């Protein structure tokens, strides 16, 4: 059965919110996508937050577009979006975390989670290798919300870079 579009932005409590002029994760609303497809008048979009000990910024990114955060001691990339889907579908979460000092430990962590308006959900915490990717199956839902976070710490303070994307 077809699903009527929600959004264009929103969250589980407020699925119908206008696109904000200023994209900021503090508003707690995120773009609503049609699975991995574009809407007729809105391309697939996620809200990112790049956070590190030296800077913080927020914006939107397209499907498959990498988001990179640079820090001296730590850096984190958060990726958030909502979806509507008539069938289960896969997204790929990719990450690449590096230190500017070759061989330095960066203690990567990865968190991803989703919840649907129907009440299903999943939360995963992992300490993965410095780079990689994982396929995540998101269920059919009239409204679901997804969040991923990639984080790394360089205890010696040489400099750190975290890159992540959804495709």
């Amino acid at each position, binding site marked *: 059965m*077809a699903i*009527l*579009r929600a959004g264009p932005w929103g969250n589980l409590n407020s699925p119908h919110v206008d696109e904000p002029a200023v994209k900021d994760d503090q508003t707690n609303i995120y773009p609503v996508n049609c699975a*991995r*497809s574009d809407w*007729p008048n809105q391309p697939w979009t996620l809200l990112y937050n790049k956070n590190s000990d030296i800077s913080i910024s927020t914006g939107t990114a397209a499907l498959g577009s990498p988001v990179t955060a640079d820090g001296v001691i730590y850096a984190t990339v958060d990726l958030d979006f909502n979806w509507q*889907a*008539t069938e289960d*579908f896969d997204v790929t979460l990719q990450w690449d975390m590096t230190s500017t000092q070759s061989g330095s430990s960066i203690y990567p962590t990865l968190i991803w989670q989703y919840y649907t308006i129907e009440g299903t959900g999943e939360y995963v915490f992992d300490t993965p290798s410095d780079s990689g990717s994982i396929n995540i199956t998101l269920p059919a839902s009239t409204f679901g919300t997804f969040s991923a976070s990639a984080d790394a710490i360089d205890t010696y303070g040489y400099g750190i870079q975290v890159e992540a994307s959804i495709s």
Partner: protein
Amino acid sequence: MLSRGEEIEWENTVSLNKQRETRARRAKAKSNKDAEKTELKYERLDRDGVSSTKARRAIKEKYAKIAEEAMNVGGAKEAETPQNFYSKKNEDPREQSDQSPSTTFESNNPPTPDDEPSDVDPFDGDGFGGDNFELDIVTDGNTAGRASFSGTIL
């Protein structure tokens, strides 16, 4: 002779005015229904057998008549509005190229709902509104598309 840009602007203005008229008419119809409900509610409180049924029927007939009159008035206006509207514009001497600029908006602009209220919905004939509109949907296979709906947006 209007340029294409002016024509588009003119059509948009006419369309907006028609939408305002539709909204005003719906509000009026709802107000009428609410008044009927209120009267029926109080009649029910005073119920005393046969006379109550008669009174309720009278109330319903009264409001049906009001609604019918409102629709008839609207129909009459609809029939004459476009003709007057365009003839007024065509007869306007300032349509000629050597006219001096107008100092008021009154004679150059199309009538607004405030100037010439109407109860007519130009988009349908049922007298109670109803528009066709398109909304985005997710169809089978997670495909984004558009679907046409017909009805009233409340």
